[in-house]
């Protein structure tokens, strides 16, 4: 019974307030090549509005580069990226405008160290969305409230813990009201205790229907919120499927081995 209730709760988190409709972001035949190194190899992916997809795979498999290509922080060598039907890889596009529509949360956080938590969140609102100081302050405060950081709004990053800094990082992306948020291993630089608070924040965002593509190895979290998991290795997608497929019976041998190691590690923790 308890197990049944648990499952129902997980389903609730996965679906409450979420309405998946049209394709929000899409990439087709995406490649990123650095000299002789192929970092991303022929990747195609669709993300629907309100959907949460989780990318996982070994270190150095090109997950971060792939995410950066989607956010147009790195120009793909080949292939196309679409956001709400608009091609972001076509020549002449205003990349600053495109990037403002895609939230990005970095693994190593990288807060603006000379600005307070509030200043970090306000910067994009003021300089990109051109909000007035008062409006930007209000929106930024609301974003900090959503990640439960309003009490630390006037603290500098150096005065905050890693978990708090990452929550500011999430608020910084969230405040811009992006169409999608891409998160590149948002918890891997944090210790387990701090990981929990960031995961709680992401869980809240999931409940609100935020579209997210998350690179993460937090398996319990993945099982709880992701509609689809994507196993990435050697620069390309090896296998995709619902979390249950990966937890019970991954199809590819590589995913099977990787999942076994991940589950073992999760149990140890």
């Amino acid at each position: 019974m308890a197990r049944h209730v648990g499952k129902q709760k997980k389903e609730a988190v996965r679906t409450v307030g979420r309405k998946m409709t049209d394709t929000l972001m899409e990439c087709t035949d995406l490649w990123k090549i650095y000299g002789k190194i192929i970092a991303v190899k022929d990747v195609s992916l669709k993300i629907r509005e309100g959907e949460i997809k989780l990318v996982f795979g070994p270190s150095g498999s090109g997950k971060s580069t792939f995410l950066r290509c989607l956010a147009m922080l790195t120009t793909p060598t080949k292939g196309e990226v679409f956001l709400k039907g608009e091609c972001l890889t076509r020549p002449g596009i205003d990349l600053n405008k495109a990037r403002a529509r895609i939230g990005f949360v970095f693994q190593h956080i990288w807060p603006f160290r000379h600005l307070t938590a509030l200043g970090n969140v306000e910067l994009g609102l003021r300089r990109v969305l051109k909000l007035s100081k008062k409006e930007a302050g209000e929106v930024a405060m609301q974003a900090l409230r959503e990640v439960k950081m309003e009490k630390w709004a006037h603290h500098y990053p150096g005065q905050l813990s890693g978990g708090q800094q990452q929550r500011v990082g999430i608020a910084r992306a969230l405040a811009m009201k992006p169409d999608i948020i891409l998160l590149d291993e948002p918890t891997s630089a944090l210790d387990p205790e701090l990981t929990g608070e960031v995961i709680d924040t992401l869980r809240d965002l999931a409940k609100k229907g935020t579209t997210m593509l998350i690179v993460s190895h937090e398996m319990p979290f993945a099982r709880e919120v992701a509609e689809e998991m994507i196993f990435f290795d050697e620069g390309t997608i090896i296998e995709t499927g619902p979390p249950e497929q990966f937890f019970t019976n991954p199809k590819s041998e590589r995913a099977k081995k990787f999942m076994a190691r991940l589950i073992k590690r999760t149990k140890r923790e």
Partner: protein
Amino acid sequence: MGLPLAFIRVYGSKTFQILIDGYEKVFRGIPEMVIMLLFYFGIGYYVPHPFKNAFFTANFALGLRSAANQSQIFRGAIRGIGEEQMTVARSLGLSRLHSIIHVMIPQVFIFSTPGLGSEYALLVKDSAYAFFLPGITEIMEIANTIRKSTGDTATPFFAAAFIYILLTFPIATWLDTWGSRKKRQLGL
């Protein structure tokens, strides 16, 4: 001038990077006195206007050498801050110029102390070389004139040394203190 040079050196095209690198190497490698004399007597011989104006040439030579030093100090700070700060700013949709203005420059000044204080002190001290240019009135020139007219060889130069300390010490110290306080406040 050092600040834009440093940013162009880091983010500019390859051609600009090579040009600025060359400029830095040349002007940091020549003694200040030689630079002044070179512009006044050397280049001034061919281009009298404006290089035969001692006041202009002294300032120009000091500026050129100091900008080369400052550029290197700021460049060190830009590298210390890290490329990541630019990446995050760009990910929010800020243009490269806005990222430099709102994210990099405020941090560059903090990271540039105490080097900036030392450079300021060096600039003030090197202004003494203008003594060798004819028709310019600076501290050493005044001290020397007093020595000649009074016959007192010690006091005027002690006074000159004291004035240099007064000009350099408070500002250099203030810059250092400001930088340290800022770094402490930001937990850097």
